[in-house]
């Protein structure tokens, strides 16, 4: 276990080093940060002075060493736009993103497991076929389109007048197809509960939860079909295995076989994939947060790019890199807990 941790931490440090070099070396292609900091009519002389003050005129190596030196002391620089340490800015925005990811994860877990299991046990049922059909479509719709459709349907509302309003069936159909709207379309709302530090949570008020709803569904929409299909496929394979047949032959009750014996082994690969996917989900938050003006790190990162806020971009990449490294490590650990036969050292078994 200890060897595993040491190995993991040194790996993580190497990964972070590589990320920092890459992030730092793309800065010249991100444009001139001064364009966002000064008005158009400011003279070149003034700009040059400010560039000097910001250390932008130093050679790359000098800039990198200065950055790395500060980073080792926990200082990832000061954001040009926010005028605050980048770590503070990220920590202020991180709770919103984490809550969005948690919301989406909850939706995924709540729906993918029952649907996936059901579709595996009853592959021929029409409901299973329906779910599989929908999930195929779901995989191919980009997240921002889902988001825009959700906003139109549930925030703005749609009035359908396709059918004759004066007939009973017509007005019923119109009514059934129309939506009222009214759900919040942007932001986290006004009623946030303060937890600790900079963490303001939307999980404890109705207003907060309503604001969370559409963004979470949008974010979940990419992963949900994938997980349903994954669980179904794994479960079907497990159901074919010898030990399940043996259990059946022994006359064990079907729910016991399905949910205790089969599901446990189904979840192993699902957890591995899930861990990686959570990391990817952090990346997808950028799209979702942009559409819903969700004040998280994804939106912050995208705006940092348009502003050429280089310190913030580099810091974000470092933090996201760190999150990837940590989730991967945790996934390996959980994997070990669920299935103790896995060797954690990662060496030849």
């Amino acid at each position: 276990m200890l060897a595993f941790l040491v190995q993991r931490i040194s790996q993580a440090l190497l990964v972070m080093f590589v990320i920092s070099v890459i992030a730092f070396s793309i800065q010249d292609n991100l444009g001139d940060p001064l364009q966002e900091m000064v008005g158009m009519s400011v003279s070149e002389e003034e700009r040059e002075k400010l560039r000097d003050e910001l250390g932008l005129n130093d050679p790359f190596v000098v800039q990198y060493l200065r950055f790395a030196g500060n980073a080792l002391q926990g200082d990832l620089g000061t954001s040009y736009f926010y005028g605050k340490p980048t770590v503070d800015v990220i920590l202020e925005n991180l709770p919103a993103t984490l809550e969005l990811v948690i919301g989406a994860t909850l939706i995924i877990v709540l729906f993918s497991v029952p649907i996936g299991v059901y579709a595996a046990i009853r592959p021929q049922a029409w409901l299973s076929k329906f779910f599989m059909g929908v999930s195929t479509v779901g995989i191919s719709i980009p997240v921002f389109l889902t988001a825009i459709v959700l906003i139109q349907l549930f925030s703005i509302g749609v009035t359908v007048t396709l059918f004759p309003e004066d007939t009973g069936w017509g007005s019923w159909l119109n009514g059934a197809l129309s939506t009222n709207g009214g759900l919040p379309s942007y932001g986290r709302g006004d009623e946030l509960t303060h937890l600790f530090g900079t963490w303001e949570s939307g999980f404890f008020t109705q207003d907060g939860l309503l604001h969370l709803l559409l963004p979470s569904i949008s974010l979940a929409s990419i992963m949900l079909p994938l997980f349903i299909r994954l669980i179904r496929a794994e479960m079907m394979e497990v159901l074919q295995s010898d030990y399940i047949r043996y259990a059946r032959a022994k006359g064990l009750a079907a729910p016991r076989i399905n949910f205790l014996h089969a599901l446990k082994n189904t979840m192993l690969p699902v957890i591995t994939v899930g861990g990686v996917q959570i990391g990817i989900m952090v990346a997808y938050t950028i799209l979702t947060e942009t559409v819903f003006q969700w004040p998280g790190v994804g939106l912050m990162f995208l705006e940092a790019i348009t502003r050429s806020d280089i310190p913030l971009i580099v810091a974000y990449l470092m933090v996201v890199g760190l999150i990837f490294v940590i989730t991967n490590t945790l996934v390996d650990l959980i994997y070990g807990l669920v299935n103790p036969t896995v060797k954690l050292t990662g060496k030849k078994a």
Partner: protein
Amino acid sequence: MKKLLTAFVGSMALAAAPVAFAAEATKELKMAYDADPVTMDIHEQLSGGMLQLSHLTFDPLLRWTKDLGFEPRLAESWERVDDNTMRFKLREGVKFHSGNELTAEDVKFTFERLKKSADYKAIFRPFTEVRVVDDYTFELVTEKPYPLLLNAATYIFPMDSEFYSGETDDGKAKDLIDKKGGSFASRNMSGTGPYIIADRQQGVRLEFERFADYWDTESPGNVGKIVLTPIKENNTRVSALLSGGVDFIAPVPPTDLDRIRSDKNTDLVTMTGTRIIMFQLNQERVEAFKNPKVREAIAYAVNQEGIAAKIMKGFATPAAQMSPEGYQGHNPNLKPRYDVAKAQELMKEAGYEDGFTITMMAPNNRYVNDDKIAQAVAAMLSRINIKVDLKTLPKAQYWPEFDDRAADMMMIGWHADTEDSANFYEFLTFCPDSETGAGQYNAGNYCNPELDKLVEMANVETDLDKRAEMLQTVEQRLYEDAAFIPLHWQDLAWAAKKNVKIEPVLNVMNFPYLGDLVIE
């Protein structure tokens, strides 16, 4: 009779209503803009967002009216003392948010700070000092007679000298202007304006509360609280309005104008803007551009009306010059010239019948539909056999390329900080001179010393009619020379719920006077 009397009393009450409203500003306004102010220090950056903030939390000495005239605010009146001096009388009894009272010393303090601000110092270069006469009288002194004195005075938002003086706990001067962030003024504020910042999470939310001791008790404004949410994404901003999440949005993207017009719960207000979009022809990079006939041919080949109608969906005013209507230099005789046959003929006369190849660059996220406009212009030029190699870039990467003059034709948009034509010429058509900073954005390297001289003369001409004539001559000559290819002035659009009466508080400079906003 009794009925009549009741009706009479009722109408009296209605007539008195605005005053009654002003006494209790209770309404709440939720608004969504595409950005929020970068700092609370109004002298840190000169930008539209910062000026909007200045008008909310401070008050200028005087401000622009809708027809580009002036109306007194903190300065009650002004009169010329001599060629170089204007005397202002300050309103008495005006309180800052801190409780301090506004005096001429505050104006002097503010002026001196403006002179130190990298972004604002250019506007105040012609000024030498603010001379305090007594507590409520001061004089603005310029080096030479300066016709734009009042224009510049709209940028003086008096700051609370007592509040911004002294040192913070960590020993920094409180009036320090620091773009890298972390100054006292970028986190604390005391103005005389209608609103106080109650809560600020940069990039997320900005909350204003009405200032109880606001001096302008005649203002009909009845908004007690404003919540500003920056929403950059066009679709999201429009959805927020249509779903009732916010009451007021700006800007409205051209693609959504019809959607908002057809919505029965919202009002759309549009106006011709003052930002000119144009292309510059680099004469240093392309030999052919030195030939006035070639430049003219290009001017004839570009269809401004078509671009405004098709690409901008009617949301732009086609231009043949830089000065928009209302500016002194606006020359009403100049109309867009579009005539492909004429253009082809000119190319032939110039000896370029077979055309040539050029490079073109434009931003793709700075101006409305900028990349599409560039594509259209490239297509139009192909009809006179000019092959265009077009590259569009995000603005952060575009401006460094622009500074390097990296392409033969480059797009730029410009709004004159002084709301005056001379500003256009100084930055865009003056012979480039890195010493004086003249022609800083003249990527065409067009140079006509004669015109530069005329503009400089206009800049010390205080007879405004005479001055207008001079500037209009400049505009005419630039047109004849085809010094650049003007496209259009970008229109402005705002939208709000029906009960939010935004129309009276909007203006072409795009800083709504929200202190006067009435919500029914």
